[in-house]
């Protein structure tokens, strides 16, 4: 079973991060590095990425069959996607256990969503 762990940021978490000392930030990166290492070792990691700042994002509305990119994420969004893990593991319980290790989890900014597949049903 594949699961997507989505890590969001919100104004509060962004502010918190900006106030962090270098040592605190290094600690945060360390937690991510360790989690990546553990998931690679168990074979459960497929891919993980941190996304660049949302100010670098482009929106793609299509007008007259032409895509015209405009700056920024969806204007009204307060919570923005900041990164993700795509993992493959045995159960939702295990996926939740992994997601709980993401530093943003205590802030309520981490989401786990099952990925759909092509499995046949009723074997």
């Amino acid at each position, binding site marked *: 079973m594949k699961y997507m762990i989505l890590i969001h940021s919100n104004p509060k978490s962004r502010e918190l991060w900006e106030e962090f000392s270098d040592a605190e930030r290094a600690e945060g990166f360390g937690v991510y590095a360790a989690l990546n290492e553990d998931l690679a070792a168990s*074979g459960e990691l*497929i891919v993980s990425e941190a996304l660049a700042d949302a100010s670098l994002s482009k929106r793609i509305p299509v007008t007259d069959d032409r895509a015209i990119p405009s700056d920024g994420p969806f204007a009204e969004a307060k919570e923005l996607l900041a990164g993700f893990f795509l993992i*493959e593991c045995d159960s939702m319980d295990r996926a939740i256990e992994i997601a709980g290790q993401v530093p943003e989890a205590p802030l309520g900014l981490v989401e786990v969503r099952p990925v759909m597949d*092509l499995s*046949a*049903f009723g074997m």
Partner: protein
Amino acid sequence: MSTATAVEDLLRELAPQVLGAFLRRYGDFDTSEDAVQEALLSAALQWPNDGVPDSPKGWLIRVASRRRIEMWRNESARRRREETASSLAPPEPEPVPADDDALTLLLLCCHPALTPVSQVALTLRAVGGLNTAEVARALLVPEATVAQRISRAKQRIKASGAEFRMPPEAERSERVAAVLHVLYLIFNEGYTASSGSTLHRVELTSEAIRLTRQLRDRLPEDGEVAGLLALMLLTDARRPARTRPDGALVPLAEQDRGLWDGQAIAEGVALITETLATAPIGPYQLQAAIAAVHDEAARFEDTDWPQILALYDLLQSIAPGPMVTLNRIVAVAMVHGPRAGLEQLAAAETDPALAGHHRVDAVRAHLLDMAGDQHAARDHYRLAARGTLSVPEQRYLESRAASMF
């Protein structure tokens, strides 16, 4: 059969034997497995053009030995001093019968220190003789993920202290059960409605059947090994009728049974019949027996539901589980009517393992549909469609919902 296909089949047959010979000689799973993989790749490139050598196994062992020496030379100087010259001599081509080696290898790849995803990837490469790219395509994950999974799995086996030898008798049945679970996972992984190009995709169902056959050759007395093989044969036999040309799945009740593979059914039925008569009963055997009853019905209406219900009763007593409960309820409805099934479903739903599960909605929708309550059936088909993780199942459930009034 083309030369390339014949060569491929031969290589995959020889892969675990060659690796077994290496492990028996050196014991270093990591380097040996990499060296054998490279020898297999060389053979796959050369043999279709140059012809298969007189002793294919000897050829592979020679090439893999050379490759292993090269790898060894690239290792650190410290490591070099520790090795002795004798450890560089290639193993004899036929040191002992290969049968035990292949089984030992399978048990090692399904070692309890590994997660199931790693067991599956390692088994497909080291025992199945597939290369990393083939394993990746078959499992629908990136090649780099598979490469990493395999190399980390080998490190974990090493760290756990496991060696290339048969586990002690006391652990044997538990370890074989783990192998059966991995083979079952491989089969299920292949049991999809993939409508994409399968041209270069190894059929995992066929691969699982091949490996389970090999295991049965080594353990002919084991009823659960035979049961799993029969279950795979009887399930895979329906494959030609299972998918519409547009990729949609066809449920059992609507399949064109004329398309089923009669030979596979005959083999599966004979195997499960013989096994049930001689071996201690187990969950795979019972699931195979249920599949056999379905496969033996010429038309869906001819299905012997009382017998299926009796088998589910037995399965529920020896290996209870939420899916067994639900499948049994469908059988109850087929024997005693949809209302009886709905009553049992309401009771079963109180089990936390089933509460909120989309399959409960799917079964309820089906039973309401049977009972003629199309409005309620439509709501539950929709609920089930929202809850499933399977794209083909979602498509099926949505179309059922749409066909209600």
